[in-house]
Structure formats: C-alpha cells, structure tokens
C-alpha cells in the first residue's frame, strides 16, 4: 500500500490558486475512481491537501484534476504549485500540519480542529479506512504531545488576544472588570469581543455617533454611554479601549491625574488602537496606568511569534520520534491482506468517534 499526500498551501500557492483547487462535493468519489483505496481531503483557508492510500501509484496530476472546482473551464497544467509527500515524508508532513508547525501563524491550534473534522467527515463517508485511521489518530496524539511538552502555543499573536492576555496579567479574573470602548472601530470591536469571551460583563460603548455606539453595544452585549460622559466613566472603569478618529490626544496625564486620585490601588489598562493615537504616551509613566498602543501590541505579538519559532526544534524532535515509531508499526499493517475486514471492525467500534 502506498501512502501519500498531495496538496498546496500558503507556502506554495496564492489564495486564487487555492480556491481553484479547493475540492467539491464529488471529490471523494472521484478520488476513489482515480485509484485511491482510502482518501481524506483537508481544506482550510491556508491549505488544500489530499491524504490517500492506494495499491498503485496515483499521479499528482490526477489528484489535482479531482480537486479542481470547475473542470470544464480549467484546462491548465496543475502540477507546479502542488507538493507531494510519500510514506514517511507524508507521515511527517501530517504530524507537522496537525501540530501547527506548517501554519501561517506557527503554533495555532485551529488546524487541529479542522484536521479532526476532515477525518470525521472522511470516516463517516467511508473513504477513510484503517491506514488513514491509524495515521490521523497518531497525528492527533502527536499534536497534543507537542502542545503539552513545548511552548509552541505560548503567547498571543493577534492584537485582540494580546490585549486580553495583558488584561489577565494585570487583573487576573476579568469577570469583575469594567470596560469602556471609546470609538466603535473594527479593531476595538474585536478586542471588546475577545474581552467578553474571557468573562467581562460590564462593557460600555461611547462614540461620537450615538447610533453606532448603540449598534456596537448591542453586538457585544454592552451598553451605550453618551460621548460627553466618557471622562466621568474613566473614574469607574478598569480597561479603556480607544480608537476614535480624533486628530489630537483625548487623554493626557493632566486630564487623567484627578481621575486616578481615588483609585490608587486599582490599575488602569489603556489600549489605544487609534492612529493618530488618542492617548498621550506619557500617560504610561503614571502610577498604576498601563498604556499599550497599536505598535506595542503588535510588538508583543511578534515577541510571541519569535518565541514560538524557538520551540520548533523541540517540536520537530517529538515529531521525528513519532514518525520513526509510526513507520515501524505501520509497515506491516499497511500491507495487510484483508483491509476490508479491518475497516468493518473500525466502523463497529465507538472508540474512534470518542477519540475525536
């Protein structure tokens, strides 16, 4: 039995090409017709990959033809953007993908959920058999081990998650924190949503346009406050997210000083995502005030990414160990005489669904 993977990803193809080869409803059947004994299609926004097992070699071109979305209008040469991994290389590639090492954002964990979903779908439709079952179950185990034994998922890598991470480093539990969103931009909405997802319940939104404030407040489950009231609100809140289009700073040390007088042991976390900035940088020098602008949030995100990249070697070592072990254990089983019997057994046991 030949185990292989054919695909394209953000490393090899642009988004248009990935769209062209994203597969369709009949892909599974066509792959079978092309000679794949078992096949699994993994499609995400950053990759399209087919993992397959076959008795005879199935060419990359054939796989590409199975993936193309509109074959009538697409007669171009498919092979160049595709990569192909066979046997051990295929196993290693899947383990790297599932562990997030091949992702655009190294260490992201969404890919593991997508791989599980793809496996479950292939298993349910009967195109994934014992070979792919073993391969994917091992891949899920490897991904879990990599995440547990390295710091590949450490730190936050987006502005919203960095802000939430920082808020937790200042306040711990966010459920009792009061948040004011000043200006109803897209990034502030995302940040507010991230905070709400971590337990914030008291969220106030203030905007020059009260309609937009109402709208955002409804979207994130907060309440709108009038724009001229925001300085009073600053006395009560713990976190301020500001993203107005003001040309001059709205918050200065002089303005903030009287507000801080009665809150000496309560920190204030200010997230300024406006360009030009809404808060004077010298505010960060005040006791108990922690100011982060868009650049500093991005710099924290980059620090996290750099740290994650440092963990790649440790993750690769875990993967190499599993690849060698898997190669040994699968070599006999891949050449099993009665795969259909094993497949029946696979369908009968409830373990495989529960493992997901």
């Amino acid at each position, binding site marked *: 039995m030949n185990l292989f993977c054919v695909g394209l990803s953000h490393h090899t193809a642009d988004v248009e090409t990935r769209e062209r080869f994203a597969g369709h409803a009949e892909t599974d059947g066509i792959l079978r017709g092309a000679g794949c004994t078992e096949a699994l299609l993994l499609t995400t926004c950053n990759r399209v990959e087919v993992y397959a097992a076959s008795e005879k070699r199935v060419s990359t071109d054939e796989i590409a033809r199975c993936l193309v979305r509109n074959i009538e209008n697409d007669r171009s040469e498919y092979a160049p953007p595709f990569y192909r991994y066979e046997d051990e290389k295929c196993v290693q590639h899947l383990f790297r993908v599932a562990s997030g090492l091949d992702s655009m954002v190294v260490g992201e964990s969404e890919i593991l959920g997508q791989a599980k979903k793809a496996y479950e779908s292939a298993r349910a439709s009967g195109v994934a058999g014992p070979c792919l079952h073993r391969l994917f179950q091992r891949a899920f185990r490897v991904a879990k081990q990599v995440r547990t*034994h*390295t*710091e590949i998922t450490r*730190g936050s890598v987006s502005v919203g998650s960095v802000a939430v991470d*920082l808020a*937790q*480093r*200042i*306040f*711990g539990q966010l459920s009792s924190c009061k948040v004011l969103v000043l200006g109803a931009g897209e990034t502030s909405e995302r940040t507010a949503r991230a905070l709400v997802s971590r337990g914030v319940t008291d969220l106030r939104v203030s905007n020059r346009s009260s309609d937009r404030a109402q709208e955002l407040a409804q979207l994130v489950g907060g309440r709108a406050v009038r724009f001229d009231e925001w300085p009073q609100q600053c006395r009560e809140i713990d976190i301020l997210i500001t993203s107005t289009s003001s040309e001059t700073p709205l918050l200065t040390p002089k303005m903030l000083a009287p507000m801080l007088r*009665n809150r*000496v*042991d309560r*920190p204030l976390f200010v997230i300024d995502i406006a360009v030009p900035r809404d808060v004077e940088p010298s505010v*960060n020098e005040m*006791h*108990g005030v*922690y100011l*982060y602008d868009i650049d*500093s949030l991005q*710099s*924290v995100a980059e*620090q*996290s990414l750099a*740290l994650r990249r*440092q*963990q790649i070697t*440790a993750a690769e070592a875990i993967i190499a160990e599993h690849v060698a072990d898997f190669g040994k254990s699968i070599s006999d089983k891949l050449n099993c005489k009665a795969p259909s019997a094993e497949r029946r057994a696979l369908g009968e046991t409830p373990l495989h669904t529960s493992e997901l």
Partner: protein
Amino acid sequence: MDRQLLIVSTLCFLAAIGRTIVSLRAGIFRPGQFNFLAIGLGFIFQTAFLSIRGHALGRCPLTNLFEVFIFLAWSVALIYMLVGPAYRLSLMGAFTAPLVVLLQGFALIAPIDTRHPVKLPANPWLEFHASISLVAYGAFALACIAGVMYLVQERQLKTHQLHSIFSHLPPLTDLFAAITRLLWWGFALYTLGLVSGFFVGQPLPYVQVVCASGVWLLYAAILQGRHLRRLAPKHVAALCIVGFSAALALLWGITFTAQMQSLP
C-alpha cells in the same frame, strides 16, 4: 544526625531550584506540583531537625544564630505552605526555595552552631516571644518575595517586555492581595511577639527594644498607608523589601548581642 536531616532538607529545596532552572533554560516553565512537593519534603526534614534539637535542648531550639537561621527558614517554608493554592502554583515556590537554601546553606557552612557554656533554663515566655517573632519574620519574608514578584511583573508591563523568564508571574492584583494578606499576618504575629517580649522576666536591652519598635512602626506605617490608599501598590511592594531587610538586620543584631552576652 540532626545536621544530616538539615542537609537532606537543603537538598530538597535545591531540587526545587534545579527543576526551575532546567525548565527556564528549556524555555518551558509551567508552574506545577514539583516545587510544592520538594518544598513540602524539605519542610518535613526541617521540622524533624527542629524537633530533635528541641528535645536535646529541652526547650525551643533558638539558642544560637545557627538555630535562629534554621527556624527562620522553617517559618518561610511554613508560610509558603499556608498562603494558599493560588500562590503555590505560581513562581512563588521558585522564589521561596532560593531564600531557604541561602538561609540554611549559610547556617550549615558558617561556624555559628556554638553550644552555650551553660544549659539555658526553660523560659516559656521567652520561647513564645522568639518563636512567634520568627514566624512573623517568615510572613514578612514571603511578603518581600511577593513584593519582588510584583515589581518584576509591573516593570514588564510598563516596559512592554513580556516574554522574559518571568512571564509566568501571577497577575498584579493577585500579587498585591497576597502582599496585603502576608503583611497583616506578619504584623499581627510580630505585635504578639513584641508584646510577649515584655513578659520574659528579664531586663530587655534598650537598643533592641527601640529597633524592634522601629520595625513594628515601619510595618504599621506601610499598612496604614495601604489602608488609607496613600501608598501606590508599587511603593508598598518596594517597602516590603525595605521592611524585611530592616527586620533581618534587627534579628542579626539581637542574636549577635545575645551571643556576646553569653560568652564568659
């Protein structure tokens, strides 16, 4: 025999430090149960040592500088075990173990385990005064450690450098709550120790009384400043370090004076 127990105890604390260093060097630090278990084991051996020494002396083992250091290290470990699960699972253990190793290591190496020429008579008030004061010192030591952690975390957040080896420190508000709690416990115990000192039935050296009252006043001022919200948390954290340094200097002075007086 009793010194061997102390060496084993020190090794346990060293294991906690070793584990922390290995984890930090590998870039992976997940505060776990290992530090707590290692410190717990070290604490058991410390307790066994103090118990054997106490039986041999027929009184609380606080008769020389060596025993004072060990009792102080025991108090630090005791308070660490008591401060609550939130702090056990943080880097608190990684900060506590080096302090204990420093105290015990110094006590074991320095020639300070001198026996009194005459067997000291038992004085329950004196023993109570000394032991309760040292447990208060343990609380102040932990407040000092939490203060250091607070300042490190605060500095990281202010300078936007968040990925140092100390990126697993607890949140600022939790640390400040821990500092406040430890200060109150330490202050209450220290007050008890100070008051009980007046009942020991011996004339108290004037300088010692003044210095001890000075340390008491310093901690009272920190707590008052905290209570009235006149002091920023950062200043409270810094003052915890100053307070413990002063308390440690006083402890040294008291023990040194007592040893000088006991010499023939």
